[in-house]
Structure formats: structure tokens, C-alpha cells
């Protein structure tokens, strides 16, 4: 299948996970994008943006930051596309870039928040849609975890990534991801202990 055919067929076909043609089509799209086809890259964006958002959202604190990180991540991927080997899994490569973009954003936010600390004390993140006590407390509890612990527990328990995938994304060994998950769960258990007795 030529790259152009792959672009056309991908535009036409649904991008559901598990499609047996997806892997080869995706490879053709990557090759086409590497040859300069913006349409092929747009098709790759369409295929991966939901998962990319999930990865970013697990690492940053807000939906808006996740959107920013997704855009940054795709921009980085576009720039680095000529260095990607099409035989590798594109998703794993892309999500690692997304995780790095998110971690960069978190670092930048921390620096900015530290700069603004002397002027005003920012309120902890609150989801405007939170309706009940558990959600409020859970939101607070999540902000008390370390960035990595929060990322690991969300990526694993909400998004369903394996320890190995999480380790690869965050640039840590699989064992460390496993240990972070254990500590994150223990911390949440401790922080939500009194809420549990209330509900």
C-alpha cells in the first residue's frame, strides 16, 4: 500500500483500537508524514489524540494544561518525526513525547507558581464541577501526592497502562513505577481514611 493510499483509507476508516489493519496503516501514515504529508500527520493526530490527552491529563493538574501539553507534544513529535524509525511502535514513542511535554509543563508551572508565591498564595486546584465531599477530598489528596505518584496511579488505575509502559513513558524503571503505584495507593488510603468512614 502506498503512503497516499494509506492516508485516504485512514481518512475513510474508523480509527478504533484493535483494527488489524491499523498497525500497517499507521506505519504507512508515519512514512507519508516523514515524507512531508501534513494530511498523514493529521490522520496520526486523529488516531492518537485521545490517548495522548489521557497521558498528559494524568501528569498535569488541569484540563487546560493537558490541552497545552497535547499540542506541545504533537509539535515536538512533528519536529522529531524524521528521527523516528517506522518499524518501532509509534504510539509508545508518541506517548513518551507527550509525557515529557507534560512533565516540562509541570516544571514550568512550579517555577511560575514559586515566582508568584510572594505576591499571592494560589488556592489549591479545585475542579469547578466537583459536587460532593469525596470528590473534593480526592482532588485535594491527589495534589498532595508527588507528581510522579499521581501520574503513575492515574496512568495505571484510570488509563490502564502497564507498569512497563508507564516506566517507559516517564523514563523510570518498571520496578520504580510499581513502587510508586504502591506508595501512591498507600498515600491515598491514608489521606482518604476519614472520608471513607463518612461515606
Amino acid at each position: 500500500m502506498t503512503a497516499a493510499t494509506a492516508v485516504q483509507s485512514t481518512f475513510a476508516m474508523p480509527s478504533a483500537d484493535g483494527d488489524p489493519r491499523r498497525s500497517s496503516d499507521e506505519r504507512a501514515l508515519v512514512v507519508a508524514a516523514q515524507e512531508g504529508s501534513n494530511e498523514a500527520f493529521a490522520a496520526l493526530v486523529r488516531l492518537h489524540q485521545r490517548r495522548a490527552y489521557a497521558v498528559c491529563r494524568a501528569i498535569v493538574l488541569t484540563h487546560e494544561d493537558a490541552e497545552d501539553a497535547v499540542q506541545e507534544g504533537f509539535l515536538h513529535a512533528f519536529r522529531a518525526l524524521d528521527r523516528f524509525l517506522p518499524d518501532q511502535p509509534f504510539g509508545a514513542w508518541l506517548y513518551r513525547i507527550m509525557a515529557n511535554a507534560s512533565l516540562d509543563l509541570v516544571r514550568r508551572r512550579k517555577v511560575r507558581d514559586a515566582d508568584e508565591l510572594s505576591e499571592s498564595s494560589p488556592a489549591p486546584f479545585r475542579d469547578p464541577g466537583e459536587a460532593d465531599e469525596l470528590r473534593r477530598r480526592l482532588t485535594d489528596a491527589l495534589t498532595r501526592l508527588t507528581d510522579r505518584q499521581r501520574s503513575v496511579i492515574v496512568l495505571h488505575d484510570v488509563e490502564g497502562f502497564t507498569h512497563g509502559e508507564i516506566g517507559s513513558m516517564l523514563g523510570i524503571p518498571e520496578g520504580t513505577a510499581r513502587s510508586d503505584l504502591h506508595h501512591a495507593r498507600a498515600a491515598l488510603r491514608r489521606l482518604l481514611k476519614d472520608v471513607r468512614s463518612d461515606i
Partner: protein
Amino acid sequence: MTKLTLHNDGADDDVTRELRALYVAPAGEPYWNELEARIMARITEVDLGWWAELDRWARPALLAAAVLVLAAGVAMFRARQVETRTAYEHILTPSPVPVETVIRPTLEGDREASLRDVVGHKSNGRP
């Protein structure tokens, strides 16, 4: 997908549910279409930017300039070498034609003219 099992009672399900609700991705195609459009707009903007074009051409241009400078340098060096060699050769190599041979016709011509002049005068002076 793994369940969050903080505790083995009903509260865990609530926590898991809340955790997933907190991190739920926006639903609806219009949102994702718009996000894709924003991503691609940003990429196109960067892709078409003059700095990207400049960046794309900077390396080949630098390489071409370096090759040109090198070629010019080599050409100049060789020209100078040839010039120097020719100058040395002119100085050191004896001329294939003897100087006398070159000069003689002129001298001889002058001498003959003088002689002719003198002889002519003499012959003219005779009765």
C-alpha cells in the same frame, strides 16, 4: 483496566469512580475535531514559518558556502603556484634562442645600412 483497590469494601468503588470521573476525557466529536484543528494549525504555522525554511536551508547553504570558499582557496593557491613556477622557470631556464641571434639581425641591419651609407657617399663623391 485495573480497578483501584484501596480497600476491599464499597468505598473503593466510589473512589475509583470519582478518580475516573475526575480524569474523564472530554466527550463528543466536535471537541476532538477542534483540538485536532488547533494542533494542525500550530504545526502548519511552524512548518510554513520563514525561520523553518531558513533552518531547512541553513545547513546546505553553509555547506555550499564552505565548498565554494575551499574551491576558491585551492584555485588561488594553484594559480599562485603556477605563477611562481613560471617566474622561476623564466629566470633559471636559458632562452632557447641565443641572445646574439636575436640581436644580430638588428645590429647587422644597422651595420649594413651604415656601410651602405658610407659606400654610397664614397661612390657619390667620385667623379
